[in-house]
């Protein structure tokens, strides 16, 4: 079995198991802890709708914080949108998803994907530089932050390398690319990349707690 077959087969397979098992493990591990009931009389209705509201509204910055957080927010937006487009709108990737989902959706031309991928990498680097140079970030950062950064950027970089065909042969690069994705999938549930799913839980929790108070969310 060559590297590509290993990557496409067992590596991806095991990574998928770990991704699914790890993510559910973490979610269940949190959700099955004791619950604290809130007996206070609500000011307004909360519940799931409130959770959904905050899941949506926290995607945007409240105006008082706009100026202070503009730079990192912009970078984070570019990175997330770029990552989203690269993962879900690149046609070969859509075919990958179609392989097990059974349906497809329209993609973007490769040149646009390439541009977005580069933008994601550039903003990722900008965010890393900020993490290293900003005293606050340097203080609060740990291994997870740097490793998660690497694990996220690595697949984009290897993906971009395939299209510019730098140094290696296509199948080698493709194998490395898929392996880097497998690494991302394996790490995702355990570190801070868990925010992929935890963001719904944290924002939702805040929505449920504070919306019923009528407090600012």
């Amino acid at each position, binding site marked *: 079995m*060559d590297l590509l077959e290993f990557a496409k087969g067992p590596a991806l*397979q095991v990574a998928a198991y770990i991704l*699914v098992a790890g993510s559910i493990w973490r979610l269940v591990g949190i959700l*099955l802890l004791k619950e604290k009931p809130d007996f206070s009389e609500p000011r307004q209705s909360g519940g799931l709708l409130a959770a959904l509201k905050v899941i949506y509204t926290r995607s945007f910055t409240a105006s008082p914080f706009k100026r202070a957080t503009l730079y990192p927010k912009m970078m984070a937006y570019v990175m997330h949108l770029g990552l989203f487009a690269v993962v879900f709108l690149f046609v*070969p990737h859509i*075919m*990958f998803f*179609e392989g097990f989902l059974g349906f497809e959706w329209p993609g973007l031309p*490769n040149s646009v994907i390439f541009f977005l991928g580069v933008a994601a990498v550039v903003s990722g680097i900008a965010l890393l530089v900020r993490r290293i140079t900003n005293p606050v970030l340097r203080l609060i950062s740990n291994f997870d932050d740097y490793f998660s950064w690497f694990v996220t950027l690595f697949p984009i970089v290897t993906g971009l390398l395939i299209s510019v*065909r730098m140094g290696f042969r296509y199948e080698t690069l493709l194998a490395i690319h898929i392996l880097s994705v497998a690494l991302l999938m394996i790490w995702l549930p355990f570190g801070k990349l868990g925010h992929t799913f935890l963001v719904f839980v944290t924002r939702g929790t805040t929505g449920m707690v504070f919306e019923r108070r009528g407090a600012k969310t």
Partner: protein
Amino acid sequence: MKKRPTVGEILQAKGVSRRGFLKYCATTASILALPPSMIPRIAEAIENARRTSVIWLSFQECTGCTESLTRSASPTVEGLIFDAISLDYHHTLQAAAGEQAEAARHAAMQENDGNYLVLVDGSIPLGNPGFSTIAGISNVDMLKETVAGAAAVVAIGSCAAFGGIPGADPNPTGAVSVMDLVTDKPVINVPGCPPIPMVMTAVLTQFLTFGELPELDALSRPLAFYGQTIHDRCYRRPFYEQGKFAKTFDDEGAKAGWCLYKLGCKGPTTYNACATTKWNNGTSFPIEAGHPCLGCSEPNFWDDGGFYEPLSTGHFDSGEKLAGAAAAGVALGAVAAAAGRRRQAKFMKEG
């Protein structure tokens, strides 16, 4: 050993003019995928090249490779090449058979010891030597015996190069490639099912004209022909970049000649010259005919996923195992939460 005539002498004897010779050299450069600026060097080399003895061994094969070669799109040139080589043994093509043929092989081996070329098509069964024999000699024995005095071995076709279809899962004959058996001689792989005839002749021409083996890649394939992927040289590549893909064999995309990636084209991982050299006298090649590349010149092409499955498809097991992983996640999460709660209770009791 008597001195064989040079190719230049052969051509002169045939009354080929210098102009004709120049034309021949230009065509040869084209075949060798060398830049036209190399023509003078080729001319010089060909003039002085000597006739070489060639022994062609056919093992577990379908004769498709021989078919391909004899239908080479350039019979004249091929003819010239075959004038320049002495095909001393090819049990499919030669009139002689059985002991007579074997005698010819032995004679050629003795006469040209250390200088002859061995061409092999077909894979070699190791499961049981009796699976494939010629004149009572097993393939593996014949290969070993013949290769012993050879200058180099050329494995023609994917079976000889990588095991091919006989070697595909479950490989009932225990088929192996030439490379697997010959380790002390240079082996040139010319894979393909079949290989492009021009490529076969080119490899021979290269050896004959320059007396040296071509530059090879990691899989011992001549870089001149296997240095770039089909995808890299495909005229449909712009559609790939634009994200325009044929989804079925008869949709609008297929009619408009869009990229066949989605229909399982293995062009991106297949190293071969089909996209430029093409087939049938440069008429066309599979993708131009509307069919995705099968990747026939790559190792394990028969086993590497479906022909019509896009390259970017992952090879997953059934969803059941994934559901199993999910269930394991629930269990682990529940155990973790229970452990956390037990710790909390313990700490609360301790105060």
